[in-house]
């Protein structure tokens, strides 16, 4: 039988039992729609996490010294005092994959402006910290390396600090505040960045030249940590290796010895965070797939009923010359049509439901072409898989028995 005739015959027999066809299709529709919606939710949350991770900066590497130990008692990570400015210079000079590197010290400071006060972290860094972290100023200017060399008492503050010391819409550039009783001139305000992936307020901080914080506020000679950025994302691993080699050499460690510092890259953090949402996506998709499977069983059930009901029709077709193959194809195409049509409606419904979730629950959703294609392929595979057995059964009928069937 020609494909055109097969299609017409299949469509006609589906049209004979509209309600039944629709209900069978409903199983596939719900299955496909839920797969699409669940994948959209999973993908959406994954992307929003990735977007948050990227607020850390571009291709960032964080370098901490290892935990120190005093008489066998180990202190917290980063407490070792072995890292110095020489390490920073060495990395800047000898690591070709590293774009920027800055030392970093962090102190707690009590900020006072008139009768207002606020406690927050004060970071001492080089100006290139702003490049690494992707920070921009909304107001004023950045300090320079000259400010660092002369340990000038200037600072850049975040929006949260401004709100708490000056009120929400004030412009503090040019004003003086006292940090731990030392007067600082505010020369810039950072752009609002919001919370990061871990719930920290990224606008609640003060950034000052490195030596100002290190020498004037903290009075230490070592540096607490370093922040570097690789020239491009693929170079992150190379940068990490280069930094390891340079620091090991500086700290007189042999190649086989463990390093006395730790490097964490932005990729590590992103991977850890997206792993969770990846598991969530798989879980949701699995549950949705099960409903698709149940829909497939529905198809099989109805096709079996249909074969029994139409035994006589099969007998008639065989007596006028239909081969087993023709009958098989006819029933297979019916099953395939149900599942493909169901798949199509399901995809449409799934996209609508995802948009609804996005609008009403304001949950981020992302519908990918892959998930649509996958649902289509999966649902037609289900049609063939679950249609095969009933079709096989129809094709294997003996024409004499089929003709006699009441």
């Amino acid at each position, binding site marked *: *039988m*020609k494909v055109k*005739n097969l299609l017409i015959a299949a469509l*006609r027999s589906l049209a*004979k039992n509209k309600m039944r066809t629709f209900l069978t299709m409903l199983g596939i529709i719900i299955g496909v729609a839920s797969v699409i919606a669940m994948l959209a939710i999973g993908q959406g949350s994954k992307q929003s996490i990735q977007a948050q991770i990227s607020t850390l900066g571009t291709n960032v590497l964080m370098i901490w010294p290892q935990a120190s130990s005093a008489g066998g008692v180990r202190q917290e990570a980063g407490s070792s005092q072995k890292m110095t400015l020489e390490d920073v210079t060495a990395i800047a000079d000898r690591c070709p994959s590293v774009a920027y590197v800055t030392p970093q010290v962090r102190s707690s400071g009590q900020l006072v402006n008139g009768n207002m006060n606020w406690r927050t972290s004060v970071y001492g860094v080089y100006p290139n910290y702003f490049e690494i972290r992707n920070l921009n100023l909304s107001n004023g200017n950045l300090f320079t390396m000259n400010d660092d060399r002369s340990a000038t008492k200037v600072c850049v503050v975040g929006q949260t600090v401004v709100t708490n010391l000056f009120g929400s819409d004030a412009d503090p550039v040019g004003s003086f505040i006292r940090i731990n009783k030392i007067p600082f001139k505010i020369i810039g305000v950072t752009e609002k960045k919001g919370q990061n992936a871990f719930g920290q307020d990224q606008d609640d901080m003060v950034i000052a030249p490195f030596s100002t914080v290190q020498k004037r506020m903290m009075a230490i000679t070592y540096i607490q940590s370093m922040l570097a950025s690789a020239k491009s994302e693929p170079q992150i691993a190379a940068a990490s290796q280069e930094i390891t080699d340079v620091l090991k050499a500086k700290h007189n460690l042999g190649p086989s010895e463990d390093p006395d510092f730790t490097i964490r890259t932005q990729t590590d953090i992103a991977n850890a965070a997206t792993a969770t949402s990846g598991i969530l996506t798989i879980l949701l998709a699995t549950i949705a797939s099960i409903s698709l499977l149940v829909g497939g069983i529905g198809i099989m059930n109805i096709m079996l009923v249909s074969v029994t009901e139409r035994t*006589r*029709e099969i*007998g*008639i*077709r*065989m*007596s*006028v*010359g*239909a*081969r*087993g*193959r*023709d009958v098989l194809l006819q029933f297979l195409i019916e099953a395939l049509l149900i599942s493909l049509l169901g798949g199509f409606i399901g995809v449409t419904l799934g996209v609508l439901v995802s948009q609804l979730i996005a609008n009403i629950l304001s949950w981020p959703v992302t519908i990918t072409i892959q998930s649509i294609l996958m649902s289509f392929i999966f649902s037609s595979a289900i049609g063939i898989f679950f249609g095969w057995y009933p079709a096989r059964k129809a094709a294997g009928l003996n*024409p*004499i028995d089929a*003709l006699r069937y009441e």
Partner: protein
Amino acid sequence: MGKAIISVKSLVKVYKMGDVEVHALRGVNVDIMKDDFVAIMGKSGSGKSTFMNIIGCLDVPTRGQYLLDDVDVSSLTKDQLANLRNHKIGFVFQSFNLLSRTSALENVELPLMYNKKIASREMRERSLNALEAVGLADRAHHFPNQLSGGEQQRVAIARSLVNDPVVILADEPTGNLDTRTSIEVMGIFQKLNHKGITIVIVTHESDIAAFTKRNITFRDGRIIKAIEVDKPRNAMDELANMPVMVEEDEV
């Protein structure tokens, strides 16, 4: 009469029903010539249906030889048998066996659908011609449930002859019809036979068999009698002479 369309030699069919062997045919020899019009008669269980199934290529014999239009059928596969049914045989059944909710025309087209060589235009043309041959051209787009029993059987006859078969096999074609419609149907068979189509019908009514040219009687899986009909009844003449009041029988 020309060559044998159907040639059967020592045909044996044994069914196994569990442990019991049922000998449906115990050595049947018969030749059916081109242009012949044969009635197969016999009581139920005499083996006439089994014989029909085998010469209709719906079943294969256990032993013996069967040549249909010079093709040895005994050794063919299922698909080859289907192909043979499609090209060389037309079936008419007692219960019409039309596809419901499918128009008369499409029912007639059915055998041609399974013949890949025929284009849809030719399919339509031949089906309309077949319907015209049975006098139902004006009913082409009616559904079976809108047709009377006699009309349904005529659609079935049209379906059986649409593929230009070498033989039309009819299993109790008048079994579900009243006397007048039975005669009408036999009239159509006579007309087709007159045009040169070989026809074999199974019937247990001797007055229906009287319309044919040859009667073959089965009993216990063997042919016990094969006679030429002396003076076959002529359906057209009888219909013309029938009183019109027969029409009111249904009241």
